[in-house]
Structure formats: C-alpha cells, structure tokens
C-alpha cells in the first residue's frame, strides 16, 4: 500500500525538511518500519515497546490510530497518516 505521511515541524530534520513523505506498508507498523529505512531514526521518535509514544499521536485520516487497531491498523492505497506530537512554546 502506498501512503503519505505528514511530518510535524519537530521531526522534519529527519526528512530533509519535507512536510510530507511517501511510505509503503499493509499496516501502520509496516509503514513506519519502511519509513525508518528511508528516514533512519524516525520510528524511535514515534513508538516505543508499548506502542505509540505517550506524547505522540498518529492519525489515519481524522482518526487516532489508538482507537483503531493501533500499530496493527490496516492501510489501503492512498491513505494519509498525520503525526501530531505534543508541542509547547509560545
């Protein structure tokens, strides 16, 4: 499945400044594994051994994947993942 992943400002150092990158995978987990190959280090910023990190959110479309099947959420072609980290600052 070819999908797109929207990258937040705080992680764009890992995507050469790109706001959106392509990934492939049948599940969110597989897509993040593949993304980590093209953009090394990104996966460990998003997930730990318990799943999505507690100050991170990953949305499939408009839905938090925690309310779907978490990292096992299936993907289909054209899906869009959005990464939303907790941010401070102002």
């Amino acid at each position: 499945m070819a999908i797109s992943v929207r990258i937040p400002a705080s992680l764009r150092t890992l995507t050469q400044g790109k706001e959106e990158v392509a990934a492939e995978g049948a599940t969110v987990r597989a897509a993040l594994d593949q993304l980590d190959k093209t953009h090394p280090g990104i996966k460990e910023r998003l997930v730990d051994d318990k799943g999505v990190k507690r100050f991170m959110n990953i949305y499939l479309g408009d839905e938090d994947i925690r309310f779907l099947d978490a990292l096992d959420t299936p993907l289909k072609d054209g899906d869009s993942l959005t990464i939303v980290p907790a941010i401070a600052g102002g």
Partner: protein
Amino acid sequence: MSARVVLVGLGGIGHPCALALAQCADISLVFLDDDRVERSNLHRLPAFAEQHIGRYKAEALCEVLAPSAKAGLSVATERLTPETAAAAIAGASVVVEGSDNFATKFLVADACALAAVPSVHGAAIAWTGTALSVRPKQSACYRCLFEDLPEGESLDCSSAGIFAPVTALVGALMAQATRDLLAHKPSLAGTITRFDARDGSFRRHVVRRRHDCALCGDMPSILSIDRARYLAPTCAMGASP
C-alpha cells in the same frame, strides 16, 4: 457577576489572546505569568515596546490594556506551581493556558480537571500552532490527547524557533474557544485545531475520550496534584525558524 477567566502564560500566544479577551465586557481577566519582557520576544508581543523590556509581562500588559479594556483586569506575577495551582484557578469559569513548557501544560490540565474547570490549551512551534479546548467530563482532556510529559528531549522546540504570526493566530483561536466555552455553545471542545503556516492549512482532529485516561478515564489515577508528576525539561523558545 462576570465570568472569571485566568490566563496562564502571556507569551506569544497568551498575549494576543489577552488582547482579544480584554474587549469582552462580560468577563474579568486574571493575567498570571512570572516572566519578564525581553527584547528577543518583542516581535511576538505587539502591545509592548522598548520601554517594557524588563517589566513583568502581566503587569505591563495590564497597564497597556487598561485604558481601552472592557473586561476587568487583574494581575498575578507568581509562577504557577503544583502548590499554588489549585488556588490560582479557584473560581475560574475558564482557564486559558498558553505556557511555553510541558510541566505547566500538564499542571493546568490536571488542576482544571480536578476542579471541573473548562480549559483551553494552545501551543506553537516553528510554522505550526495548535489549540484544544476541554470541557471536563464531557470532552476529551489534554491527557486523552497526550498522555504524559515527553521524557528526555523537548522535541526541538528551542532549536526550531517560531514564526511570530502563528502565535497571533493561535491566540485568536484560543480567545474564540474561550468565548464558546463561556457561552456553553456546542463548541469545538475535544477537538484539536492545527494550523500550518507553510501551506495555510487548518486541520481538525476530534480527540476521543480514552477510557484508560489517567485524568478523566473510568479509573483515574490522578486524584490530586503531586509535584513529582511535573518534573520535566522546560522548553524555551528562541529565534525565528
């Protein structure tokens, strides 16, 4: 009696939010911030100028707004701490949190949930800003969205900088969210609004209440304010992105 609105944090997002809310005749505003105006933040504090450098933000803002304000204004220049949080928000109709560090964000979220006070949380980094409003027990809370403080790293906020106009926009979103909460409108409570200045996009995600939320879930574990819960790296904002 006018509604009491407590603004925690008068930096780049709290400042413009205060400018908007000060024009509301039906509220009394409390400015709570122990920070002072620095030259490096003047560009995102439009009501301030050279002569305010070194002054408490809360006091200087009250002074600048007083001649034209329709809202009642009062000032507190102490830091919000786990020990003072409950008293600081007591009697508030809404607490507006625009602080620059995670410890304060979670402290406000917890204190408001425990006291059943609605809250609005704003943040900005680089080209992105977010706003979330919370109606206790009815909508998702800040911890339904972000479970706990980031450990270790502070997500590059100090190095990412901030694009000043984004902070003004977040302040406007927060002011409107405050109005909606005060009016008991079927508002955007529980919805996070995100703005990205690079492509001008607004996105909204409905944040669902989590049954296992430590603050508002079925079996909450956060039942009081415990200082140890708010020990985390602070996030100072620096240059432009």
